[in-house]
Protein backbone atom coordinates (compact mmCIF):
# COMPACT_ATOMS: atom_id res chain seq x y z
CA UNK A 1 0.00 0.00 0.00
CA UNK A 2 1.34 3.41 -0.99
CA UNK A 3 0.97 6.08 1.65
CA UNK A 4 -1.17 8.89 0.29
CA UNK A 5 -0.07 12.47 1.10
CA UNK A 6 -1.32 13.78 4.41
CA UNK A 7 -4.40 15.89 4.21
CA UNK A 8 -4.02 19.58 5.02
CA UNK A 9 -6.63 19.55 7.76
CA UNK A 10 -4.61 16.92 9.66
CA UNK A 11 -1.54 19.14 9.36
CA UNK A 12 -3.64 22.07 10.61
CA UNK A 13 -4.97 20.03 13.52
CA UNK A 14 -1.62 18.62 14.54
CA UNK A 15 0.57 21.63 13.85
CA UNK A 16 3.91 22.03 15.55
CA UNK A 17 2.73 24.19 18.43
CA UNK A 18 0.00 21.66 19.36
CA UNK A 19 2.38 18.71 19.24
CA UNK A 20 4.94 20.65 21.25
CA UNK A 21 2.50 21.50 24.03
CA UNK A 22 0.94 18.04 23.79
CA UNK A 23 4.26 16.29 24.29
CA UNK A 24 5.85 18.81 26.64
CA UNK A 25 3.00 20.34 28.56
CA UNK A 26 3.72 23.45 30.62
CA UNK A 27 2.41 23.74 34.15
CA UNK A 28 1.58 20.05 34.48
CA UNK A 29 1.32 20.13 38.26
CA UNK A 30 -0.85 21.20 41.15
CA UNK A 31 -0.73 24.91 42.07
CA UNK A 32 0.69 25.32 45.53
CA UNK A 33 -1.74 26.96 47.93
CA UNK A 34 -4.40 26.85 45.23
CA UNK A 35 -7.64 28.64 46.00
CA UNK A 36 -9.73 26.57 43.64
CA UNK A 37 -9.70 23.18 41.96
CA UNK A 38 -12.00 21.45 39.48
CA UNK A 39 -12.02 18.24 37.48
CA UNK A 40 -13.27 18.09 33.92
CA UNK A 41 -14.43 14.77 32.48
CA UNK A 42 -15.08 13.81 28.91
CA UNK A 43 -17.28 10.75 29.41
CA UNK A 44 -17.06 9.87 25.73
CA UNK A 45 -13.36 9.02 25.93
CA UNK A 46 -12.67 8.93 29.66
CA UNK A 47 -10.19 11.79 29.50
CA UNK A 48 -9.86 13.76 32.71
CA UNK A 49 -8.16 17.02 33.51
CA UNK A 50 -7.90 18.66 36.90
CA UNK A 51 -7.31 22.40 36.93
CA UNK A 52 -5.95 24.21 39.99
CA UNK A 53 -5.51 27.97 40.34
CA UNK A 54 -4.52 30.55 42.90
CA UNK A 55 -6.60 33.69 42.70
CA UNK A 56 -5.47 36.75 44.64
CA UNK A 57 -7.94 38.73 46.74
CA UNK A 58 -8.12 41.37 44.00
CA UNK A 59 -9.09 38.77 41.37
CA UNK A 60 -5.79 38.06 39.64
CA UNK A 61 -4.91 34.53 38.52
CA UNK A 62 -1.48 34.29 40.07
CA UNK A 63 -0.92 30.72 38.95
CA UNK A 64 -2.82 28.19 36.84
CA UNK A 65 -1.82 24.56 36.36
CA UNK A 66 -3.37 21.26 35.42
CA UNK A 67 -2.98 17.53 35.82
CA UNK A 68 -4.51 14.75 33.81
CA UNK A 69 -4.34 12.36 30.92
CA UNK A 70 -5.65 13.10 27.53
CA UNK A 71 -5.08 13.40 23.83
CA UNK A 72 -2.64 15.83 22.22
CA UNK A 73 -5.43 18.36 21.68
CA UNK A 74 -6.73 18.46 25.25
CA UNK A 75 -3.26 18.49 26.80
CA UNK A 76 -2.03 21.22 24.43
CA UNK A 77 -5.12 23.26 25.13
CA UNK A 78 -4.62 22.96 28.90
CA UNK A 79 -0.94 23.79 28.59
CA UNK A 80 -1.51 26.89 26.46
CA UNK A 81 -4.38 27.94 28.70
CA UNK A 82 -2.16 27.82 31.79
CA UNK A 83 0.43 30.01 30.05
CA UNK A 84 -2.05 32.49 28.66
CA UNK A 85 -3.79 33.09 31.98
CA UNK A 86 -0.94 33.48 34.44
CA UNK A 87 -1.11 37.02 35.81
CA UNK A 88 -4.45 37.80 34.17
CA UNK A 89 -7.68 38.94 35.79
CA UNK A 90 -10.48 36.42 36.28
CA UNK A 91 -12.60 38.45 33.85
CA UNK A 92 -9.96 37.81 31.16
CA UNK A 93 -10.26 34.07 31.74
CA UNK A 94 -13.93 34.27 30.87
CA UNK A 95 -13.17 36.35 27.75
CA UNK A 96 -10.52 33.90 26.58
CA UNK A 97 -12.81 30.92 27.25
CA UNK A 98 -15.44 32.45 24.97
CA UNK A 99 -12.81 33.29 22.35
CA UNK A 100 -11.35 29.74 22.38
CA UNK A 101 -14.78 28.18 22.24
CA UNK A 102 -15.84 30.34 19.29
CA UNK A 103 -12.52 29.69 17.52
CA UNK A 104 -12.92 25.94 17.94
CA UNK A 105 -16.47 25.74 16.66
CA UNK A 106 -15.56 27.95 13.70
CA UNK A 107 -17.68 30.90 14.72
CA UNK A 108 -14.81 33.42 14.54
CA UNK A 109 -11.25 33.61 13.24
CA UNK A 110 -8.14 34.79 15.10
CA UNK A 111 -8.57 38.47 14.09
CA UNK A 112 -12.15 38.49 15.29
CA UNK A 113 -11.04 36.82 18.52
CA UNK A 114 -8.44 39.54 19.06
CA UNK A 115 -11.14 42.19 18.79
CA UNK A 116 -12.90 40.66 21.79
CA UNK A 117 -9.92 40.90 24.17
CA UNK A 118 -7.39 43.49 25.38
CA UNK A 119 -4.59 44.37 22.97
CA UNK A 120 -1.89 42.72 25.10
CA UNK A 121 -3.58 39.33 24.65
CA UNK A 122 -2.93 39.28 20.91
CA UNK A 123 0.01 36.87 21.21
CA UNK A 124 -2.01 34.53 23.38
CA UNK A 125 -4.82 34.52 20.83
CA UNK A 126 -2.35 33.72 18.06
CA UNK A 127 -1.18 30.69 20.00
CA UNK A 128 -4.64 29.59 21.09
CA UNK A 129 -5.90 29.96 17.53
CA UNK A 130 -3.79 26.90 16.70
CA UNK A 131 -6.55 24.92 18.43
CA UNK A 132 -9.06 26.03 15.82
CA UNK A 133 -7.93 23.15 13.55
CA UNK A 134 -10.53 21.10 15.45
CA UNK A 135 -13.28 22.91 13.57
CA UNK A 136 -12.76 20.38 10.74
CA UNK A 137 -13.14 17.55 13.28
CA UNK A 138 -16.43 18.14 15.14
CA UNK A 139 -16.00 15.25 17.59
CA UNK A 140 -12.66 16.71 18.71
CA UNK A 141 -13.98 20.15 19.69
CA UNK A 142 -14.70 18.85 23.18
CA UNK A 143 -11.07 17.78 23.53
CA UNK A 144 -9.96 21.37 23.00
CA UNK A 145 -12.55 22.94 25.28
CA UNK A 146 -12.40 20.40 28.15
CA UNK A 147 -9.66 22.19 30.16
CA UNK A 148 -11.42 25.51 29.68
CA UNK A 149 -14.66 24.10 31.02
CA UNK A 150 -12.70 22.80 34.01
CA UNK A 151 -11.10 26.21 34.50
CA UNK A 152 -14.42 28.03 34.50
CA UNK A 153 -15.86 25.50 36.97
CA UNK A 154 -12.77 26.01 39.09
CA UNK A 155 -13.23 29.79 39.09
CA UNK A 156 -16.95 29.40 39.76
CA UNK A 157 -16.17 27.19 42.77
CA UNK A 158 -17.67 24.02 41.24
CA UNK A 159 -15.53 20.91 41.79
CA UNK A 160 -16.66 18.94 38.72
CA UNK A 161 -17.64 19.52 35.16
CA UNK A 162 -18.28 17.45 32.09
CA UNK A 163 -18.21 18.07 28.38
CA UNK A 164 -21.72 16.62 28.17
CA UNK A 165 -23.48 19.74 29.36
Amino acid sequence: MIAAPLTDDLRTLYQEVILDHGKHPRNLRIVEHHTCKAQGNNPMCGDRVTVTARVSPDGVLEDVAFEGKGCAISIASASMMSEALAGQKVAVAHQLFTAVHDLCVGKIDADQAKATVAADLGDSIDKLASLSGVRQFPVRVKCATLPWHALISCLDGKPQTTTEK
Partner: protein
Amino acid sequence: MNKKLVKTAAYDVTKVRADFPILAREVHGKPLVYLDSAASAQKPRQVIEAISRAYSHEYANVHRGAYYLSETATTAYEAAREKVRRFINAARLKEVVFTKGATEAINLVAATWGRSFIKAGDEIVLTAVEHHSNIVPWQLLRDATGCVLRIAPVAVNGSIDIQEFAKVIGPKTKLVAVAHVSNVLGTVLPVREIAELAHAAGAKLLLDGCQGIVHEYVDVQDLGCDFYVFSGHKLYGPTGIGILWAREALLEAMPPYQGGGDMIDSVTFAKTTWAPPPAKFEAGTPPIVQAIGLGAAIDYLNTLDRAAVAAHESALLRYAMTSLAQVPGVRLIGTAPGKAAVQSFVMEGAHPHDLATVLDRSGVCVRAGHHCAQPLMEILGVNATTRASFALYNTMGEVDALIAALRKAQEVLL
Protein backbone atom coordinates in the same frame (compact mmCIF):
# COMPACT_ATOMS: atom_id res chain seq x y z
CA MET B 1 -11.78 -20.44 18.18
CA ASN B 2 -14.44 -22.86 19.19
CA LYS B 3 -13.68 -26.53 18.92
CA LYS B 4 -16.95 -27.17 17.13
CA LEU B 5 -15.88 -24.88 14.33
CA VAL B 6 -13.46 -27.06 12.42
CA LYS B 7 -11.28 -25.21 9.96
CA THR B 8 -12.23 -25.36 6.31
CA ALA B 9 -10.25 -24.03 3.40
CA ALA B 10 -12.55 -22.09 1.10
CA TYR B 11 -14.03 -18.80 2.17
CA ASP B 12 -14.89 -16.27 -0.49
CA VAL B 13 -14.59 -12.97 1.35
CA THR B 14 -15.02 -11.00 -1.90
CA LYS B 15 -18.40 -12.60 -2.41
CA VAL B 16 -19.36 -11.92 1.21
CA ARG B 17 -18.29 -8.27 0.91
CA ALA B 18 -20.56 -7.84 -2.09
CA ASP B 19 -23.47 -8.52 0.28
CA PHE B 20 -22.64 -5.42 2.37
CA PRO B 21 -23.48 -2.30 0.33
CA ILE B 22 -21.75 0.14 2.68
CA LEU B 23 -18.38 -1.51 2.11
CA ALA B 24 -18.34 -0.09 -1.40
CA ARG B 25 -18.31 3.52 -0.22
CA GLU B 26 -15.39 5.82 0.36
CA VAL B 27 -14.57 7.91 3.42
CA HIS B 28 -12.51 11.08 2.96
CA GLY B 29 -11.81 9.90 -0.57
CA LYS B 30 -10.38 6.56 0.62
CA PRO B 31 -11.94 3.10 0.51
CA LEU B 32 -13.81 2.41 3.73
CA VAL B 33 -11.86 0.10 6.05
CA TYR B 34 -14.36 -0.74 8.74
CA LEU B 35 -12.64 -2.19 11.80
CA ASP B 36 -15.24 -1.35 14.44
CA SER B 37 -17.65 -4.24 14.13
CA ALA B 38 -17.38 -5.00 17.85
CA ALA B 39 -19.15 -1.67 18.40
CA SER B 40 -21.70 -2.32 15.69
CA ALA B 41 -21.52 -4.50 12.62
CA GLN B 42 -22.46 -3.45 9.10
CA LYS B 43 -25.61 -4.91 7.56
CA PRO B 44 -25.91 -7.24 4.58
CA ARG B 45 -28.31 -6.39 1.77
CA GLN B 46 -30.42 -9.37 2.87
CA VAL B 47 -31.14 -7.65 6.23
CA ILE B 48 -31.73 -4.24 4.66
CA GLU B 49 -34.13 -5.76 2.14
CA ALA B 50 -35.98 -7.77 4.79
CA ILE B 51 -36.55 -4.57 6.77
CA SER B 52 -37.65 -2.70 3.68
CA ARG B 53 -39.95 -5.56 2.66
CA ALA B 54 -41.50 -5.74 6.12
CA TYR B 55 -42.35 -2.04 6.10
CA SER B 56 -43.38 -2.03 2.44
CA HIS B 57 -45.54 -5.12 2.39
CA GLU B 58 -46.11 -6.82 5.74
CA TYR B 59 -46.38 -4.13 8.38
CA ALA B 60 -49.03 -3.83 11.06
CA ASN B 61 -49.03 -4.16 14.82
CA VAL B 62 -48.54 -7.69 16.11
CA HIS B 63 -50.72 -9.90 18.30
CA ARG B 64 -53.86 -7.97 17.30
CA GLY B 65 -54.60 -10.41 14.55
CA ALA B 66 -58.16 -9.74 13.49
CA TYR B 67 -57.00 -8.87 10.00
CA TYR B 68 -54.64 -10.34 7.45
CA LEU B 69 -51.79 -7.83 7.68
CA SER B 70 -51.53 -8.07 11.43
CA GLU B 71 -51.54 -11.82 11.17
CA THR B 72 -48.74 -11.63 8.60
CA ALA B 73 -46.67 -9.31 10.77
CA THR B 74 -47.26 -11.50 13.83
CA THR B 75 -46.19 -14.59 11.92
CA ALA B 76 -43.00 -12.87 10.75
CA TYR B 77 -42.24 -11.57 14.26
CA GLU B 78 -42.75 -14.97 15.86
CA ALA B 79 -40.81 -16.66 13.07
CA ALA B 80 -37.87 -14.42 14.00
CA ARG B 81 -38.14 -15.71 17.57
CA GLU B 82 -37.94 -19.28 16.28
CA LYS B 83 -34.87 -18.37 14.21
CA VAL B 84 -33.18 -17.04 17.33
CA ARG B 85 -34.20 -20.14 19.28
CA ARG B 86 -32.60 -22.41 16.75
CA PHE B 87 -29.52 -20.21 16.44
CA ILE B 88 -28.76 -20.50 20.16
CA ASN B 89 -30.31 -23.97 20.52
CA ALA B 90 -32.72 -22.92 23.24
CA ALA B 91 -34.95 -25.78 24.38
CA ARG B 92 -38.17 -23.76 24.21
CA LEU B 93 -39.49 -20.88 22.16
CA LYS B 94 -40.96 -19.20 25.25
CA GLU B 95 -37.44 -18.85 26.66
CA VAL B 96 -36.54 -16.29 23.97
CA VAL B 97 -37.52 -12.75 25.01
CA PHE B 98 -37.17 -9.81 22.63
CA THR B 99 -35.75 -6.68 24.26
CA LYS B 100 -34.54 -3.44 22.78
CA GLY B 101 -30.93 -4.50 23.30
CA ALA B 102 -28.49 -6.38 25.49
CA THR B 103 -28.37 -3.49 27.95
CA GLU B 104 -32.10 -3.68 28.45
CA ALA B 105 -31.90 -7.46 28.79
CA ILE B 106 -29.39 -7.20 31.66
CA ASN B 107 -31.38 -4.42 33.30
CA LEU B 108 -34.46 -6.60 32.96
CA VAL B 109 -32.80 -9.47 34.82
CA ALA B 110 -31.45 -7.13 37.51
CA ALA B 111 -34.79 -5.41 38.00
CA THR B 112 -36.97 -8.53 38.05
CA TRP B 113 -35.01 -11.61 39.05
CA GLY B 114 -32.56 -9.51 41.02
CA ARG B 115 -35.14 -7.54 43.01
CA SER B 116 -37.02 -10.76 43.75
CA PHE B 117 -34.22 -13.10 44.68
CA ILE B 118 -31.21 -11.02 45.76
CA LYS B 119 -31.10 -9.88 49.37
CA ALA B 120 -28.76 -7.83 51.54
CA GLY B 121 -25.45 -9.62 51.98
CA ASP B 122 -25.89 -11.84 48.92
CA GLU B 123 -22.99 -11.71 46.51
CA ILE B 124 -22.88 -11.12 42.78
CA VAL B 125 -19.64 -12.04 41.03
CA LEU B 126 -18.46 -10.09 37.99
CA THR B 127 -15.08 -10.03 36.28
CA ALA B 128 -12.68 -7.16 35.80
CA VAL B 129 -13.28 -7.18 32.04
CA GLU B 130 -16.98 -6.34 32.08
CA HIS B 131 -18.63 -3.74 29.89
CA HIS B 132 -20.42 -0.98 31.80
CA SER B 133 -23.73 -2.58 30.80
CA ASN B 134 -22.81 -5.62 32.90
CA ILE B 135 -21.62 -3.51 35.83
CA VAL B 136 -23.98 -0.62 36.34
CA PRO B 137 -27.28 -2.60 36.48
CA TRP B 138 -25.76 -4.66 39.30
CA GLN B 139 -24.60 -1.52 41.10
CA LEU B 140 -28.17 -0.22 40.93
CA LEU B 141 -29.33 -3.56 42.36
CA ARG B 142 -26.66 -3.33 45.07
CA ASP B 143 -27.84 0.14 46.02
CA ALA B 144 -31.43 -1.09 46.18
CA THR B 145 -30.85 -4.36 48.05
CA GLY B 146 -27.58 -4.12 49.95
CA CYS B 147 -26.01 -7.02 48.09
CA VAL B 148 -22.26 -7.16 47.51
CA LEU B 149 -20.40 -7.11 44.20
CA ARG B 150 -17.23 -9.18 43.97
CA ILE B 151 -14.82 -8.88 41.09
CA ALA B 152 -12.82 -11.78 39.64
CA PRO B 153 -9.40 -10.62 38.45
CA VAL B 154 -7.96 -10.58 34.94
CA ALA B 155 -4.38 -11.62 34.18
CA VAL B 156 -1.93 -9.28 32.45
CA ASN B 157 -2.43 -10.99 29.06
CA GLY B 158 -6.21 -10.67 29.40
CA SER B 159 -6.91 -14.24 30.51
CA ILE B 160 -9.36 -15.11 33.23
CA ASP B 161 -7.71 -17.71 35.45
CA ILE B 162 -10.29 -20.19 36.69
CA GLN B 163 -8.40 -20.82 39.94
CA GLU B 164 -8.47 -17.10 40.71
CA PHE B 165 -12.09 -16.99 39.68
CA ALA B 166 -12.95 -19.80 42.09
CA LYS B 167 -11.58 -17.78 45.02
CA VAL B 168 -14.17 -15.07 44.46
CA ILE B 169 -17.13 -17.47 44.46
CA GLY B 170 -18.46 -18.47 47.84
CA PRO B 171 -21.53 -19.70 49.69
CA LYS B 172 -23.10 -16.24 49.52
CA THR B 173 -22.78 -16.04 45.73
CA LYS B 174 -26.23 -15.91 44.18
CA LEU B 175 -25.33 -14.75 40.69
CA VAL B 176 -22.30 -14.80 38.44
CA ALA B 177 -22.61 -12.29 35.59
CA VAL B 178 -19.75 -12.29 33.09
CA ALA B 179 -18.93 -11.57 29.49
CA HIS B 180 -18.76 -14.56 27.16
CA VAL B 181 -16.11 -12.69 25.16
CA SER B 182 -14.43 -9.45 26.29
CA ASN B 183 -15.23 -6.49 24.06
CA VAL B 184 -11.85 -4.88 24.83
CA LEU B 185 -9.47 -7.83 24.98
CA GLY B 186 -11.19 -10.45 22.85
CA THR B 187 -10.66 -12.98 25.63
CA VAL B 188 -13.02 -15.94 25.45
CA LEU B 189 -13.93 -16.61 29.06
CA PRO B 190 -13.88 -20.21 30.35
CA VAL B 191 -17.65 -20.13 30.65
CA ARG B 192 -18.26 -23.86 31.09
CA GLU B 193 -15.89 -23.98 34.06
CA ILE B 194 -17.46 -20.82 35.41
CA ALA B 195 -20.90 -22.41 35.04
CA GLU B 196 -19.74 -25.41 37.08
CA LEU B 197 -18.34 -23.18 39.82
CA ALA B 198 -21.46 -21.03 39.90
CA HIS B 199 -23.83 -23.96 40.05
CA ALA B 200 -21.75 -25.77 42.68
CA ALA B 201 -22.21 -22.67 44.83
CA GLY B 202 -25.94 -22.63 44.12
CA ALA B 203 -25.67 -19.48 42.04
CA LYS B 204 -27.11 -18.62 38.63
CA LEU B 205 -24.93 -17.67 35.67
CA LEU B 206 -25.67 -14.80 33.30
CA LEU B 207 -23.55 -14.49 30.17
CA ASP B 208 -23.24 -11.20 28.33
CA GLY B 209 -23.02 -12.60 24.85
CA CYS B 210 -22.74 -9.39 22.80
CA GLN B 211 -19.36 -10.40 21.41
CA GLY B 212 -19.70 -14.12 22.11
CA ILE B 213 -22.68 -14.63 19.81
CA VAL B 214 -20.68 -13.08 16.95
CA HIS B 215 -17.45 -15.00 17.32
CA GLU B 216 -18.41 -18.27 19.03
CA TYR B 217 -20.85 -21.07 18.38
CA VAL B 218 -23.48 -20.58 21.06
CA ASP B 219 -25.55 -23.45 22.40
CA VAL B 220 -27.19 -22.14 25.56
CA GLN B 221 -27.97 -25.63 26.79
CA ASP B 222 -24.41 -26.78 26.32
CA LEU B 223 -22.85 -23.64 27.83
CA GLY B 224 -24.61 -24.34 31.11
CA CYS B 225 -25.66 -20.73 31.70
CA ASP B 226 -29.00 -19.63 33.10
CA PHE B 227 -29.31 -16.31 31.27
CA TYR B 228 -27.73 -15.37 27.92
CA VAL B 229 -28.13 -11.89 26.46
CA PHE B 230 -27.02 -10.30 23.21
CA SER B 231 -27.85 -7.45 20.89
CA GLY B 232 -28.93 -7.69 17.27
CA HIS B 233 -26.83 -4.91 15.80
CA LYS B 234 -23.49 -6.57 16.54
CA LEU B 235 -24.76 -9.72 14.82
CA TYR B 236 -25.27 -7.93 11.47
CA GLY B 237 -28.89 -7.14 12.37
CA PRO B 238 -30.58 -3.82 13.15
CA THR B 239 -30.30 -1.71 16.29
CA GLY B 240 -33.18 -1.60 18.75
CA ILE B 241 -33.43 -5.36 19.17
CA GLY B 242 -31.80 -7.64 21.68
CA ILE B 243 -32.35 -11.05 23.16
CA LEU B 244 -32.77 -12.31 26.67
CA TRP B 245 -32.67 -16.05 26.85
CA ALA B 246 -33.38 -17.58 30.25
CA ARG B 247 -34.41 -20.96 31.49
CA GLU B 248 -38.18 -21.33 31.53
CA ALA B 249 -38.45 -21.84 35.30
CA LEU B 250 -36.56 -18.58 35.88
CA LEU B 251 -38.79 -16.61 33.51
CA GLU B 252 -41.84 -18.12 35.19
CA ALA B 253 -40.60 -17.06 38.62
CA MET B 254 -39.62 -13.53 37.59
CA PRO B 255 -42.15 -10.70 37.94
CA PRO B 256 -42.83 -8.54 34.87
CA TYR B 257 -40.32 -5.83 33.94
CA GLN B 258 -42.66 -3.19 32.59
CA GLY B 259 -46.43 -3.04 32.65
CA GLY B 260 -48.49 -2.28 29.60
CA GLY B 261 -50.20 -3.81 26.64
CA ASP B 262 -49.35 -7.26 25.34
CA MET B 263 -47.95 -8.52 28.65
CA ILE B 264 -51.22 -9.21 30.40
CA ASP B 265 -53.63 -12.07 30.71
CA SER B 266 -56.50 -9.93 31.98
CA VAL B 267 -56.74 -6.46 33.46
CA THR B 268 -59.24 -5.11 35.95
CA PHE B 269 -58.65 -2.17 38.27
CA ALA B 270 -58.68 -4.63 41.14
CA LYS B 271 -56.23 -7.17 39.76
CA THR B 272 -54.18 -7.86 36.68
CA THR B 273 -52.74 -11.21 35.76
CA TRP B 274 -49.71 -11.64 33.54
CA ALA B 275 -49.35 -13.38 30.28
CA PRO B 276 -46.88 -16.29 30.33
CA PRO B 277 -43.32 -15.71 29.09
CA PRO B 278 -42.11 -14.36 26.77
CA ALA B 279 -45.09 -11.96 26.44
CA LYS B 280 -44.83 -11.17 30.17
CA PHE B 281 -41.58 -9.32 29.42
CA GLU B 282 -42.62 -7.68 26.17
CA ALA B 283 -44.91 -4.87 27.30
CA GLY B 284 -46.05 -2.45 24.64
CA THR B 285 -45.64 -2.66 20.90
CA PRO B 286 -42.36 -4.52 20.43
CA PRO B 287 -39.60 -3.68 17.93
CA ILE B 288 -41.39 -5.69 15.27
CA VAL B 289 -39.36 -4.97 12.18
CA GLN B 290 -36.11 -4.98 14.16
CA ALA B 291 -36.92 -8.54 15.25
CA ILE B 292 -37.65 -9.49 11.64
CA GLY B 293 -34.34 -7.86 10.66
CA LEU B 294 -32.49 -9.89 13.27
CA GLY B 295 -34.15 -13.01 11.92
CA ALA B 296 -32.88 -12.07 8.46
CA ALA B 297 -29.36 -11.60 9.85
CA ILE B 298 -29.51 -15.10 11.31
CA ASP B 299 -30.80 -16.47 8.00
CA TYR B 300 -27.85 -14.76 6.34
CA LEU B 301 -25.34 -16.26 8.75
CA ASN B 302 -26.90 -19.67 8.21
CA THR B 303 -26.13 -19.40 4.48
CA LEU B 304 -22.44 -19.12 5.33
CA ASP B 305 -20.14 -21.87 6.46
CA ARG B 306 -19.69 -20.68 10.03
CA ALA B 307 -16.61 -22.80 10.55
CA ALA B 308 -15.06 -21.07 7.54
CA VAL B 309 -16.09 -17.68 8.95
CA ALA B 310 -14.43 -18.55 12.25
CA ALA B 311 -11.26 -19.67 10.49
CA HIS B 312 -11.23 -16.48 8.43
CA GLU B 313 -11.63 -14.24 11.48
CA SER B 314 -8.99 -16.22 13.30
CA ALA B 315 -6.55 -15.76 10.42
CA LEU B 316 -7.31 -12.02 10.31
CA LEU B 317 -6.59 -11.76 14.02
CA ARG B 318 -3.30 -13.65 13.79
CA TYR B 319 -2.17 -11.46 10.89
CA ALA B 320 -3.25 -8.27 12.68
CA MET B 321 -1.46 -9.26 15.89
CA THR B 322 1.75 -10.07 14.02
CA SER B 323 1.58 -6.92 11.90
CA LEU B 324 0.73 -4.60 14.80
CA ALA B 325 3.54 -6.00 16.91
CA GLN B 326 5.98 -4.97 14.17
CA VAL B 327 4.96 -1.30 14.30
CA PRO B 328 7.49 0.54 16.51
CA GLY B 329 6.03 1.66 19.83
CA VAL B 330 2.89 -0.45 19.55
CA ARG B 331 1.92 -2.63 22.50
CA LEU B 332 -0.88 -5.19 22.16
CA ILE B 333 -3.47 -5.22 24.92
CA GLY B 334 -5.12 -8.62 25.23
CA THR B 335 -3.17 -11.64 24.06
CA ALA B 336 -5.03 -14.48 25.76
CA PRO B 337 -4.78 -17.82 23.95
CA GLY B 338 -7.77 -18.68 21.79
CA LYS B 339 -9.10 -15.14 21.81
CA ALA B 340 -11.67 -13.70 19.43
CA ALA B 341 -10.92 -11.25 16.59
CA VAL B 342 -10.84 -8.09 18.69
CA GLN B 343 -7.47 -6.39 19.21
CA SER B 344 -6.75 -3.44 21.47
CA PHE B 345 -3.41 -1.69 21.45
CA VAL B 346 -1.64 1.44 22.54
CA MET B 347 1.06 3.36 20.71
CA GLU B 348 3.81 5.13 22.57
CA GLY B 349 3.51 8.90 22.33
CA ALA B 350 0.15 8.87 20.61
CA HIS B 351 -3.17 9.06 22.41
CA PRO B 352 -5.82 6.68 20.99
CA HIS B 353 -8.11 9.59 20.09
CA ASP B 354 -5.42 11.29 18.07
CA LEU B 355 -4.64 7.98 16.38
CA ALA B 356 -8.30 7.38 15.54
CA THR B 357 -8.63 10.86 14.05
CA VAL B 358 -5.60 10.38 11.79
CA LEU B 359 -6.65 6.83 10.85
CA ASP B 360 -10.10 8.11 9.92
CA ARG B 361 -8.55 10.38 7.29
CA SER B 362 -7.14 7.22 5.74
CA GLY B 363 -10.63 5.71 5.70
CA VAL B 364 -9.83 3.38 8.60
CA CYS B 365 -12.54 3.24 11.30
CA VAL B 366 -11.34 2.06 14.69
CA ARG B 367 -12.63 2.59 18.18
CA ALA B 368 -10.62 4.74 20.57
CA GLY B 369 -11.35 5.26 24.21
CA HIS B 370 -12.33 3.23 27.23
CA HIS B 371 -14.76 0.95 25.34
CA CYS B 372 -17.32 1.31 28.14
CA ALA B 373 -14.95 -0.64 30.38
CA GLN B 374 -13.38 2.02 32.57
CA PRO B 375 -12.64 -0.33 35.48
CA LEU B 376 -10.66 -2.57 33.12
CA MET B 377 -8.73 0.43 31.75
CA GLU B 378 -7.72 1.29 35.29
CA ILE B 379 -6.52 -2.27 35.94
CA LEU B 380 -4.58 -2.27 32.66
CA GLY B 381 -3.00 1.02 33.67
CA VAL B 382 -4.11 2.85 30.55
CA ASN B 383 -6.51 5.73 30.10
CA ALA B 384 -7.74 4.47 26.78
CA THR B 385 -6.84 2.06 24.00
CA THR B 386 -7.30 1.87 20.25
CA ARG B 387 -9.27 -1.18 19.17
CA ALA B 388 -9.50 -2.86 15.81
CA SER B 389 -12.22 -5.48 15.63
CA PHE B 390 -12.67 -7.85 12.74
CA ALA B 391 -15.78 -9.28 11.16
CA LEU B 392 -16.60 -11.81 8.50
CA TYR B 393 -16.25 -9.16 5.76
CA ASN B 394 -12.77 -7.89 6.62
CA THR B 395 -9.71 -8.73 4.55
CA MET B 396 -5.98 -9.12 4.99
CA GLY B 397 -5.64 -6.06 2.78
CA GLU B 398 -7.57 -4.08 5.36
CA VAL B 399 -5.12 -5.17 8.03
CA ASP B 400 -2.39 -3.80 5.74
CA ALA B 401 -4.36 -0.56 5.37
CA LEU B 402 -4.55 -0.27 9.17
CA ILE B 403 -0.82 -0.74 9.50
CA ALA B 404 -0.08 1.78 6.71
CA ALA B 405 -2.40 4.30 8.37
CA LEU B 406 -0.70 3.76 11.73
CA ARG B 407 2.70 4.48 10.20
CA LYS B 408 1.26 7.60 8.64
CA ALA B 409 -0.16 8.60 12.02
CA GLN B 410 3.32 8.32 13.47
CA GLU B 411 4.50 10.83 10.88
CA VAL B 412 1.79 13.26 11.95
CA LEU B 413 1.85 12.76 15.69
CA LEU B 414 5.40 11.82 16.65
